[in-house]
């Protein structure tokens, strides 16, 4: 039918066909886009590239543009080189690049044009919050399991260690923390075994920043009376052992970016790291699974981070600051880095 010939989709998301990154990444972004589009009754669609290569990503972007896209959301750092190219090819189209900054593919040339909004998340801040909450809730033997040592995961981990330390120092206690990158993001009996070993060895709670591998940690927790801190989205539905989750405001930031665009102030040319100040990261607003930690305590530490009291926020070390979790400046935590 000729009417269909003109069917266009104004908002687009390109998937990255599953990367080493957390699988929820596509989805979180997609939900923000979908929510905004449906509220405002704007047409939207997602596209799959034919291949995992920059060219294929660019081709998919082109297809989206040809199909009427005005704003294109690309989740994940694998899109960096594609956006680097696409920003010049489609100056009239806006791009929201999550977790990445446009670069030429070899990290030699970094350049962001006016039609690109680059969004990072302050994972170290939410990691900090999670660690703080756990220790405040009385846990003294903690663990961190990251998927792989990619920057976002490293930031989660470092933040967690420092949050744990901050709370322990506040309370004047000493705690221990096991720290490990699993080597993968998929669920596996091996990870489950490892997690079970930790719980058996006395670890009370594990922060699992490991995508689907987190499910294996949860299964181990269920069998061993342990607790888990989820990641990216609110995971309390996945298992009763999940006490809280380190949220990244993927949906919110996409939603906000789109709202800005339609309000005429798209933040083109900017690269931001969304932290607590803008609700870029947070813990979920449900504290029922904590015993002593509660909303008031959370709001207090959150406010401190927002206000950057005593440089608390800016003092949090990130992935680029130290090369190993064992080098983090801690006073009340014994960090055991494994592997």
């Amino acid at each position: 039918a000729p009417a269909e010939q003109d069917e266009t989709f104004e908002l687009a998301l390109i998937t990255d066909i599953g990367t080493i990154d957390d699988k929820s990444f596509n989805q979180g972004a997609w939900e923000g886009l979908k929510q905004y589009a449906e509220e405002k009754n704007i047409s939207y669609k997602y596209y799959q590239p034919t291949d995992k290569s920059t060219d294929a990503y660019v081709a998919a972007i082109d297809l989206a543009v040809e199909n009427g896209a005005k704003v294109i959301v690309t989740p994940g750092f694998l899109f960096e080189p594609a956006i680097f190219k696409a920003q010049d090819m489609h100056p009239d189209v806006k791009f929201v690049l999550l977790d990445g900054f446009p670069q030429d593919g070899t990290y030699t040339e970094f350049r962001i044009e006016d039609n690109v909004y680059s969004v990072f998340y302050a994972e170290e801040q939410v990691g900090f919050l999670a660690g703080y909450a756990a220790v405040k809730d009385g846990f003294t033997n903690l663990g961190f399991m990251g998927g792989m040592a990619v920057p976002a995961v490293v930031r989660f981990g470092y933040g967690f260690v420092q949050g744990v330390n901050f709370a322990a120092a506040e309370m004047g206690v000493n705690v221990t923390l096991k720290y490990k990158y699993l080597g993968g993001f998929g669920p596996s009996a091996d990870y489950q075994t490892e997690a079970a070993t930790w719980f058996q060895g006395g670890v009370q709670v594990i922060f699992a920043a490991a995508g689907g591998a987190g499910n294996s940690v949860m299964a181990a927790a269920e069998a061993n009376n342990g607790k888990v801190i989820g990641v990216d989205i609110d995971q309390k539905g996945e298992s009763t052992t999940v006490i809280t989750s380190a949220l990244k405001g993927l949906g919110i930031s996409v939603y906000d970016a789109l709202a800005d665009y339609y309000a005429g102030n798209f933040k083109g040319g900017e690269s931001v790291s969304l932290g607590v100040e803008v609700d870029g990261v947070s813990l979920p607003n449900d504290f029922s699974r904590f015993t002593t930690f509660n909303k008031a305590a959370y709001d207090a530490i959150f406010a401190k981070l927002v206000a950057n009291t005593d440089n608390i926020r800016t003092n949090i070390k990130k992935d680029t600051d130290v090369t190993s979790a064992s080098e983090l400046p801690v006073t009340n935590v014994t960090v055991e880095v494994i592997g």
Partner: protein
Amino acid sequence: MNVKKLLSNRSFKSASASVFAILFGLLIGYIILLISNPAQATRGFMIILNGGFNGGLRGVGNMLHNAMPIILTGLSVGFAFKTGLFNIGASGQFILGAFTAIYIGVKWTFLPSGTLWIVAIIGAMIAGALWGGIAGVLKAFRNVNEVITSIMLNYIGMYLVNFLVVSTVFDLTRNQSISPRAAYLPTGGMNILFPFSSANIGIIIAIVVAIIMYIVLEKTTFGFELKAVGYNREASRYAGINEKKSIILSMMIAGALAGLGGGLLYLSNTGKHIEVVDVLASEGFNGIPVALLGLSNPIGIIFSGLFVGHMNMGGFYMQRLRFVPEVIDIMIAIIIYFSALSLAFKSFIENLSRKLGGRAK
């Protein structure tokens, strides 16, 4: 009986061939360890040899759980081998079984909770059998090489399952299937034997099924006829056997075994889900070395599946030392595959010497 003596003698010889092959594979693995990290090689090797035992009872339980799906895909491949077919399609059958089990586990909650998992694994077997049956029908009626069809059916099956997961039992936020909580397998006492491990009734089912397969193949006329068709289709036809039916049934049984493996694995309460990614289920392919090492004998396959599971656990615990995970992966792969391949050498020699023995009499 003279026959019985000879048979037992034969299986003894065969088993020793497998052991020899495994020793060879381990030797190669040790050499690799020595090259990559001489200082910790021996300790690493000891950890590998200890396999699941490194983790105490729990480690053993996890080893059993690890072995369960590959025992079943190994049985699938081995059963097909015995009946003259090369089932490369276990991967597709496995994942269709997995999907069907999850689907039933999630959707048919109107069934009483104690029976749901049973219905779900029966469904998994049926799905696997149908998928395997396609290759069987094409072979029986069109003489299309089952290697070709079953490889392609792996891919079609994978895409089909992705599509079905997305349209029926999808966890949108995780891009994977929903947990079939109501159909989780009972532990079957394994939680008592191996506390805190992933082991459940699945491994018991796998072993029972292996024994049943052994009886079917060796003691029944049905198995006798299937093997005859496998060895010589023409001769069986002349002997009055419906050889088309036999081929189709062989592939269906092989498919059912792989499908059962998929069902049991994904109904285990271990937080495993079908991810919607374009990747073939590796359990299907891992059945091949398991079947080879087990000499396609169902009882042998129990042991070779346990061996492979044991090695995988050993590799896991080796991370205690300073080995790069990729080195461990490749070493475990080499131990397993070299064992299986060196067996091919050995069985070749064995074969010769068997002929010799037969003639000498």
